[in-house]
């Protein structure tokens, strides 16, 4: 009897093998039906060729093309071309002269900065942070140029508004001008920069930040900035650097390295840095390391000028009531004035 079952088992086995055979046959049909997606070699090489073009060179060519001579392709119907504040060529050179990138001996100027600044002992009662007079650019021009006058009028107007605390938010008109002006700009920094995007002043795609980052930490993010190949990078860092770097000199060297790396990876980029803001008085009284902020800022100012990076002095905008609860970050009011100030500094009407 069991050889009967053995025969059946063998027969069953053949059937299952047959089924597997049938399935493999169907697999073969399937493979033929969807046989490999084959890109064409020649075509792929052309696409790769396009991809390997050097972006900075392309950007250079595109940005420098002579827009003034309007091409005939403009349609007959008279179209008012929206006056985009294109930087005319000669304006660009004066603002950001191409500094000969030389090895700057950091030690020597730092001491000098130290001696000038009143050394604030951490235990001292909180003195009012030295109101920072708007430092003139190092090369002292003879009488105040038109630019300084405009800056001073602007500051006077907004200082008064800040004191009365009636800083209205940006109108649509101002918002659009800011977007137009900073279309090819990247805001780079720590949470002070993140706030710019979070508050909605500029599209998040133009903000690259790393929270609680020191300048060293930002150096690692430079490739991300480089990938965008921006025309201009505005650096805005905060008090993390005070507790990260023991002395202002370390901070200055780090900042110099940052600037050099940026220029190396993004040829022809314009760099600006916003001042390092002091902590609020309340916080300053408890945090000895932060209270030294003005020293760091002064050195930042000095180093920036040495490196040909435009230093934007925003300390005058600070008001105690505009600090957030943590005493480090600023609320929307500060940034409203900050952006208008930027618009003034980088606008065409200077």
């Amino acid at each position, binding site marked *: 009897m069991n050889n009967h079952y053995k025969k059946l088992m063998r*027969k069953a086995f053949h059937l299952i093998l047959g089924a597997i055979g*049938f399935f493999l046959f169907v697999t073969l049909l399937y493979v033929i039906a969807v046989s490999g997606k084959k890109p064409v070699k020649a075509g792929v090489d052309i696409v790769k060729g396009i991809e390997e073009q050097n972006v900075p060179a392309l950007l250079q060519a595109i940005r420098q093309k002579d827009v003034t001579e309007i091409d005939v392709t403009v349609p007959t119907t008279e179209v008012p071309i929206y006056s985009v504040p294109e930087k005319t060529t000669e304006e660009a050179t004066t603002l950001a002269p191409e500094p000969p990138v030389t090895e700057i001996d950091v030690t020597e100027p730092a001491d000098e900065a130290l001696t000038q600044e009143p050394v604030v002992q951490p235990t001292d009662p909180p003195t009012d942070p030295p109101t920072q007079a708007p430092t003139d650019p190092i090369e002292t021009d003879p009488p105040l140029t038109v630019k300084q006058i405009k800056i001073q009028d602007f500051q006077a107007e907004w200082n008064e508004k800040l004191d009365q605390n009636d800083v209205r938010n940006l109108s649509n008109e101002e918002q659009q001008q800011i977007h137009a002006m900073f279309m090819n700009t990247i805001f780079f920094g720590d949470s002070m920069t993140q706030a710019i995007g979070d508050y909605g002043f500029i599209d998040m795609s133009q903000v690259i930040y790393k929270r609680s980052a020191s300048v060293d930490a930002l150096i690692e993010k430079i490739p991300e900035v480089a990938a965008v190949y921006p025309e201009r990078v505005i650096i805005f860092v905060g008090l993390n650097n005070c507790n990260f770097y023991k002395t202002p000199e370390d901070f200055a060297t780090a900042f110099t390295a940052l600037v050099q790396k940026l220029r190396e990876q993004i040829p022809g980029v314009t760099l600006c840095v916003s001042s390092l803001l002091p902590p609020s008085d309340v916080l300053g009284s408890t945090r000895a390391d932060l209270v030294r902020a003005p020293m760091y800022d002064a050195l930042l100012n000095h180093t920036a000028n040495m490196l040909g990076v435009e230093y934007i002095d925003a300390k005058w905008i600070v008001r105690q009531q505009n600090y957030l609860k943590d005493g480090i970050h600023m609320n929307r009011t500060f940034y409203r004035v900050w952006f208008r100030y930027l618009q003034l500094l980088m606008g065409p009407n200077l």
Partner: protein
Amino acid sequence: MVFSSMTYLFVFLPMVLLAYFIAPPRARNMVLLAFSLIFYAWGEPVYIFLMLMSITVNYVFGRIISNNRANHSRYAKLNLGIAVGWNLLALGIFKYYPFVSSQLRGIGLKFIPGMKLILPIGISFYTFQAISYLVDVYRNKIRVQRGFLKFALYISMFPQLIAGPIVRYEDVEKQLSKRKVTLAMFGNGGEYFLRGLIKKVLLANQLGALYVQIESLGAAHASVLTAWLGAFAYTFQIYFDFSGYSDMAIGLGKMFGFRFPKNFDYPYTATSITSFWRRWHISLSSWFREYVYIPLGGKRVSPRKHVRNILIVWMLTGFWHGAGWNFMLWGLYYGILLLLEKYVVHDRIARHPWPGRILTFLLVTIGWMFFVHTDFSEMLTYVGHMFGIGCTFANATTGYFLRTGLLVLLLGMFFSTPIFHRLNEQFAVNYYTTSIALRVVMFMLCVAALVYQSYNPFLYFRF
């Protein structure tokens, strides 16, 4: 869980087969019961408790009734009434209360609380099973089941739990305690299961997809012929879906040693409505005949009362299929047809069967249109299209559906007749290897259709 699903075929079934045939014979009932409860709880994790309650309550009622009969208690009939009443109440609340309360509230009786209850799957089946058990115990047709586990297994055995057939206790009484499964019997079970699976997955689902396409046609594309095509598609879909499911249930029963009664006997070859209902869902119509029609006096009453009995039985049959006016209409439709046959047409049909078959098939097809449309306006428009109201006789779309649906409709026609069964009888046994190879390929096609899973409806949510 549904038999035609990946979860069942490749997770549940292998596990239950393994556990069942490894377990010692004494423990097999226990294993089958445990798996049946898992099978039910998989889709209804909440209503499993309602079924368990129903099982316990009916077990105790069974013992009470048999006890009453033993002591010739005066209350025997009353206790039976309460026992059956409890089951009908449970079915009534979950299946009909939402519908009834919404109708009553609709006509102004606002104080009736409208409860939104989801219908538990299979409640109609196991409730009717319990009622037939209690009445049979009362009539001393069967000996009461003393073992609670065996009784629970009788009610909740997974092959027949969700969509029947409504198994009478007397059919499986002996098998509950002693049953044997030989390889040949298991193979026979496999044959039934495969036939059911093929009917459901390869025929019913495709016909269903065809019907859905036709049903969703806007008035612009509709035409008389297309409407009839859609009606035939649904007629075959519900037959292959339901008879396929019953075949799978019978097949699974055989695999575990049970013999369930046949539920379908090629109903679309019936020459008259009466014989159609002797071939369609046999276990249900025999249940109604046994426990409603005969107690009401059946045929042995005056013609006037007989008409009343027929109408009541068929309204209830229709209403059993779903809580909706259209189901009652469907039941009434058949009640009237049966009366016409009995009192007007008599046996004149029997003399020429072919016109009888065609007429019966057309009447049944129209019947299904009442059955499928729960919304009256949709029903009227569709049936109207079938009779040329509001659309042309035929148009390009008819050509499209004829081309794409003709083969599956022809297959449907072919497989709803016993021709294949007779051919299979000789052919399969003599050329057994090739016929089993054919079954393997068909099984693979079923798996392929289930893997792609584009259209696999579960029609029993209303039953």
